């Protein structure tokens, strides 16, 4: 930001300030926040009520009646009892968890390793930095098409493997249930490691250099400096970075759906893909709404709990 200098000295200001008009500020503040409030209400309150309403019926767009008449198809919470017994739902949830438990730690460790390499200056740093950030800016759907091509049985991934092994490799990555999940996770790690790298590097640069020097003088080796100074200083940043990736990874859809469509069979079907299929292919919207609402409720509880924990952590002086 350009340098800003106050042209009026404090005395002068004190003398010339009009009596404060809190009313004017409050009124303007209310008006300025109004559009955002309306948009939030428009996307939260009304849709949630609608979702709740539809979720206790068998309604679908094909049922021939308007959604507001969905009560005619009331099914007394059958959607929710079905959900509890729906193995496809539970395995989708489990798969989402597996993807998260593999991808997020992998992205974190790779990102942290890269960030450590970039902590101080070296020739070429800026250009390497820009290039390494590129994957996260590629449109996820396009990344999906890219990895769809890469993992074809005659594609470049197998070509590289063939050169390493020495014999032709023709693995059908995307049509093998286990390998498809691996391919999908590779794409996610490729795209989002840069985000971890970016955030962790921002935190790493903030670690005070004099403390590091002092520790070096006291005979601490690199690993000791890392565990006793760097990691504690970066605790908050690490939590933020992990939280962002956990949240985003839970939503995983674009790259995955384009690469495999959730298949082969249901081998890569995550929770978002499952809701998508229930809604757009099976066209049972009442059930889709029930799943979606269940997910939203669980996430809200997690979010409120996490925010309370964070507020508590902030009270403890660092």
């Amino acid at each position, binding site marked *: *930001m*350009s340098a*800003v200098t106050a*042209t009026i000295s404090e005395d002068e*200001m004190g003398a010339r*300030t*009009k009596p404060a008009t809190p009313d004017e*500020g*409050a009124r*303007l*503040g209310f*008006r*300025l*926040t109004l*559009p*955002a409030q309306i*948009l*939030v209400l*428009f*996307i*939260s309150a009304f849709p949630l009520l609608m*979702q709740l309403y*539809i979720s206790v019926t068998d309604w679908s767009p094909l049922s021939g009646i308007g959604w507001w008449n969905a009560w005619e198809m009331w099914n007394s919470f059958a959607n929710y009892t079905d959900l509890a017994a729906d193995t496809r739902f539970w395995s989708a949830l489990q798969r989402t968890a597996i993807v998260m438990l593999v991808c997020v730690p992998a992205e974190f460790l790779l990102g942290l390793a*890269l960030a450590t*390499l970039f902590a101080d200056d070296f020739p070429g740093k800026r250009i*390497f930095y*820009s*290039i*390494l950030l*590129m*994957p*996260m800016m*590629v*449109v996820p*759907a396009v990344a*999906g*098409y*890219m990895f769809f*091509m890469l993992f074809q049985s*005659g594609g*470049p991934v197998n070509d590289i493997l063939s050169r390493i092994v020495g014999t032709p490799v023709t693995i059908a990555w995307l049509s093998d249930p286990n390998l498809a999940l691996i391919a999908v996770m590779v794409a996610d790690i490729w795209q989002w490691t840069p*985000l971890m790298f*970016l955030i962790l590097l*921002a*935190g790493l*640069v903030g670690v005070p*250099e004099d403390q590091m020097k002092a520790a070096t003088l006291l005979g601490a080796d690199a690993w000791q400096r890392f565990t006793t100074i760097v990691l504690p200083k970066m605790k908050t940043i690490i939590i*933020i970075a992990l939280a962002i990736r956990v*949240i985003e990874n839970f939503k995983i859809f*674009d790259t995955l759906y*384009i690469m495999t469509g959730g298949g082969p069979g249901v081998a890569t079907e995550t*929770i*978002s893909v499952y809701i*998508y299929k229930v809604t757009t292919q099976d066209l049972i919207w009442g059930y*889709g709404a029930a*799943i*979606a609402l269940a*997910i*939203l409720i669980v996430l*809200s509880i997690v979010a409120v709990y996490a925010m309370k924990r964070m507020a508590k952590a902030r009270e403890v002086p660092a």
Partner: protein
Amino acid sequence: MKRSVPFEIFRYAAIFAAMAVTLVPILWMVSMAFKPIGEWSATGADLTWWPRQPTLSNFRFVFGESDNDLIVALDHTAVKPILSSLLSAVFGTVIAMSAGTAAAYGLSRFGSGQNLPLALTQLRLFPPMAVMIPVMIMWAFLNLNDTWLGLALIYGIVTLPFAFWLMKTFFDDMPREIEEAALVEGCSRLRVFTRITLPMMRAPLASAALFVFILNWSDYLIALLLTTREWVTIPVYMASLSSSMTGQLYGAKAALGLIAAVPPVIMGIAIQRHLVRGLTFGALKQ
């Protein structure tokens, strides 16, 4: 801190390995975009990393020129999807930035809308798929399905949290002296905001708008649910680039993918400084 020579060697080796992994997928798409049909799905010994006979025919094909080597022709060129992506992303950005900037200023200066930070954080937390069923019903009711305006509206809401948080941290960081001086001179608070604060914040506003545009431009799921034919966006349209006769039109997909990928990458590099702030909702600044 002075580093040892072995460390420098290790550092460059590791960085070059990371760069290779980063670039191979991107370069494969770039190379595919310029390959003639015969090289698209060449396998084994025929697989080429660089096009043997580079051609622009893939780009011409997606814009409607028929390709002599391809039996298929497009009944629907990529022009309208590109227009759809542009219109919905631009107007979505306008909506998010207008509402977000105003609300951020209201909260930052006057403490209005105390509920917004939590509400907008929750909005980001939820998977889009879990809130889209009512949106699809509402949009059908409002006749917004399969229109760029409908997409722009939902994009504006989905990216509102990012616009709000980015602008809030920018406003919080901004020194108040000039605003106070203007108030003393007798400016109304609204005039201070529109005539003094906003012009001063031109650069942060531009960065935030680019950030929000990238997010809107990157959407796939929402467009997949809300558009069917007339106003499909680029990623949704790409799925139609395959046919039962020729299979996947790899070259055409890669060409269009390249067109879709270039703008956000350039913009992202331009606003590199603010990426951390935007992604962490202002919790971290670079």
